[in-house]
C-alpha cells in the first residue's frame, strides 16, 4: 500500500463523509429543535441534486457559472420549500400523535419521488463532466471537485457550530429546543424559529444534493438510499447534535472505505453493524443526550 493510495482513499472517505454529514446534520438539526423526524428529508436531498443538475446542465450549461448557480438554487429553493412545508403542512400535525408525522412525511417523500419522475423522467441524470479537473497523486488521480466538496462539508460544520454557539438566533433555537414553553414565556417567537430551523435543515439537504450530483448522479429514489444511511449516521453520532453528525458521518465513511478495501461485498455491512452495536450499548449515540419522553 503506497502513500498515494492512502492519500486518495482518505480523500474518497472524506468526500463521502461530507455528503453524509450535510444530509444527516439537516435531519438532526430539525429533530433536535422540533422533535420532528422528517422522512421527506431524503427527498429534499434528491430535489437539491435535480435542481443543481438542471441549472448546471440544462438551464445555464456546463460552466463555472452553471455549477455555482446550481448550488445557490438548490440551497435557496430547498430553504423556501422547507419553510413553507413546516408552516403549512407539518405544523397542524404537532398536536397529533408522532406516528402521524412519520406517515405524513413518508407520504411526502413518496410523492416527491413521483413528482421528480414526472418532471425529470425516470433515468439517471448525470453531468457530462465532473467539474474542476483533477490532480495527480502518484499513479492516482484526484478530481479537484471532491476536494471542494470536503471543504464545503467542513465549512458547513464550522458554520453551524458558530451559528448555534455565537449568534442570538442560534442560542434562541437551542433554548426553544430545550423547552419551547419557557422560551416563549421569555419572549422568544418560537413560531418563527421553527420555520427558520426547518428552512436551514432543508437547505442543508439541498446543499448535499447539489454537492453530490456531479459525482453521484441524480436519480429517483436516491433520497431513500440517503435517508437510510443518515439514520445510521445519526444513531452512531447521536440525534440533535451537529458534532454527532460529523463524527457519525466520519465513522460511517471510514467503515465503508475499510470494507471496500478489505471485503467489498460487505461494503455497507460494517456501518450497520456499528449502528446495531451502538443501539445496544448507547442508544442515544456518541453525542446524543438521553431524551425524556414528554
Amino acid at each position: 500500500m503506497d502513500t498515494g493510495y492512502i492519500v486518495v482513499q482518505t480523500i474518497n472517505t472524506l468526500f463521502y463523509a461530507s455528503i453524509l454529514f450535510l444530509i444527516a446534520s439537516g435531519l438532526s438539526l430539525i429533530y433536535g429543535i422540533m422533535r420532528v423526524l422528517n422522512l421527506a428529508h431524503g427527498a429534499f436531498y434528491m430535489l437539491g441534486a435535480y435542481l443543481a443538475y438542471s441549472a448546471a446542465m440544462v438551464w445555464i450549461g456546463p460552466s463555472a457559472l452553471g455549477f455555482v448557480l446550481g448550488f445557490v438554487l438548490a440551497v435557496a429553493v430547498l430553504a423556501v420549500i422547507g419553510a413553507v412545508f413546516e408552516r403549512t403542512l407539518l405544523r397542524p400535525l404537532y398536536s397529533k400523535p408522532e406516528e402521524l408525522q412519520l406517515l405524513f412525511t413518508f407520504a411526502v417523500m413518496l410523492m416527491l419521488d413521483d413528482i421528480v419522475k414526472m418532471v425529470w423522467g425516470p433515468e439517471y441524470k448525470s453531468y457530462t463532466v465532473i467539474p474542476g479537473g483533477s490532480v495527480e497523486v502518484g499513479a492516482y488521480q484526484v478530481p479537484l471537485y471532491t476536494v471542494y466538496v470536503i471543504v464545503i462539508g467542513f465549512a458547513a460544520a464550522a458554520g453551524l457550530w458558530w451559528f448555534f454557539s455565537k449568534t442570538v438566533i442560534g442560542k434562541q433555537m437551542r433554548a426553544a429546543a430545550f423547552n419551547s414553553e419557557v422560551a416563549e414565556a421569555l419572549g422568544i417567537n418560537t413560531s418563527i424559529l421553527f420555520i427558520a430551523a426547518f428552512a436551514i435543515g432543508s437547505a442543508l439537504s439541498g446543499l448535499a444534493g447539489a454537492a453530490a450530483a456531479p459525482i453521484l448522479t441524480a436519480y429517483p429514489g436516491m433520497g431513500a438510499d440517503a435517508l437510510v444511511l443518515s439514520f445510521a449516521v445519526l444513531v452512531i453520532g447521536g440525534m440533535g447534535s451537529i458534532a454527532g453528525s460529523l463524527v457519525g458521518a466520519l465513522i460511517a465513511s471510514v467503515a465503508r472505505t475499510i470494507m471496500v478495501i478489505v471485503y467489498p461485498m460487505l461494503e455497507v455491512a460494517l456501518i450497520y453493524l456499528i449502528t446495531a452495536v451502538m443501539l445496544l450499548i448507547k442508544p442515544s449515540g456518541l453525542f446524543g443526550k438521553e431524551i425524556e419522553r414528554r
Partner: protein
Amino acid sequence: MVDESKRNTLKVLGAGVVGLVVGLAGGYAIGASSKKGATKTVTVTKEVGGGAAAKPSGIPSKPLKIGFMYFMSGPFGTYGKMAGAALEIARDEINSRGGILGRKVELISKDEADRQHVIDNIVKMVQEEGAEILIGIDSSGDSLKLIKTIEEELRVPLIVTHAATPKLTECGKRKYIFRISMYEEPIDIAAAELVAKMYPDAKKVASIGPDYAYGWDSWTVFSSRLKELMPGVEFAEPIYVKLGTTDYTSYIDKMIAAKPDIVFSSLWGGDAATFFKQAASKGLFKNIKAYLNPMLGATDTLKAIGDENVPSGVDIWGSGRYWFNYPPHDVYSLNKSFVEKFKAKTGEYPPYVSGTSYTALYAVKNAIELAYAELGKWPSPEELIKYLEGLTVAGPMGPVYIRPEDHQGVYYVYWGKLAKGGPLGFPHPVLTDLEIFDFGKVVPPPFKTYVKCG
C-alpha cells in the same frame, strides 16, 4: 437483467430504525423438465408467404393478443420503453399487411418494475386479458422465477428478449420458453478471445460487476475462458457492488492499486455510465491497456457517458445483443429500415433490446404462418412450439437461428471499440471497428455452460 427491487423501493419506515437492505433473492425454481420431447427439427427459410390478401379459413376472428413485460418505469424504464416502441413498429408493419393470417396483432403489457407482482401480472395477462403469446423480461432473476408458471401453469410460449443468464436455456430443456436474444455466455467467451488476440502480453486482469447472478456468472465465464487461452494471466480479486451504486471512487483507486493491464466490467445501464465517468476522472484508463464491458453497446448507456468522457490512448471495448450499425445498412436493408423507423418514432438509435424484441414478434409471425402452411389450421401453443424450434428469422441483427435443442436463438457476437460519436455524425459515443465472432466459434453447444446449474 435486474435481479433486485426497484432502486427507489423504500427500505425503511419508522423512527430511528435502520433498515438493512436485503436484496431480493430471486426465487429459484428451475423446474428442469427431463422429459425428452420429440425434437423434430424444422428447417425453414426466413420469410414465408407474401401478404395475407384473403383471410385463410379456420382462423379465429378476434385479434391475436401478445402480452409483453419489461421494466417500463423506474431507473431501468428506458429499456422497456425502447423495447415496447420496437414491438409497436413490428405490430404496425404486420397489421398494415393484414396481420398474421388475417388476425390483427394487439399488444398488451405489464410493468416488470412492479417487482412484487411479476408472476401475478404474467398470469393476469394470459388468464384474464387473453394473451396467447408472451414476449419480454429484462431481469434474469424474473426469467428464472417464471419458468414454473409458464411451463406448468400457463402453457403459452414466452419469448425472452433480454434476460441473459445461461441458466434460462442451458440448464435444462424448456418446453414453452424460448430466448431470441443472444445470452451472456457467448459474449463473455468472445471477450476472452478478444483479449487473447489483441493483448497477448497482458499479465493481470481486474474486474467489477453487479453483485447478483448476472455479475457473478459473467465473470466466471470470462475468467474461465481466458485462463484456458492465457494460462499465465493473473486475476485480481473480483469486485462486486450493489446494483445502483453511485460512488465507485474507492473501488477505482483499489483497482489502480492492483496495477491491472485489462479491466473487465459487467456493470450495465446507468451504473455502467456512472462508473465510467468516475473512472475517467480518476485516471483509471491512463493506467491500463484495455477496458471491456459486455453491456456497453447499449445506446442509453453511451448517451449517458457522452463524448466528453471518451478517453484516448486506451482501448475501450463494448458489446451487446445487437448493434444498430451492424450488419452495415448498405448491405442489409432490413437493419437500415428498422433503424430509420425507430429513429422516426423515438428520435433515438435503437438499443439492443429494441432489436431483439422486434425480432421476437416476427419469429411468432413466421412460426404461425409455417404451422398453418403445414397443418392448415391456427396452431395450438404446443404446435406453435414445434415451428419455433429450428426457425430462422431475419431480424435487424441478421438471421437468428432458434436452436431446437435448448430454444436459444443464436447469431454472431460482436465487440466494438468506443469512439466519440460527434465526428462520425452521431449524438453519442458509438462502437466502431467491430470484431465479429461467428456463433459457431463462441456459442457453446446446447446445455454446455461454464456456469454451475442447480
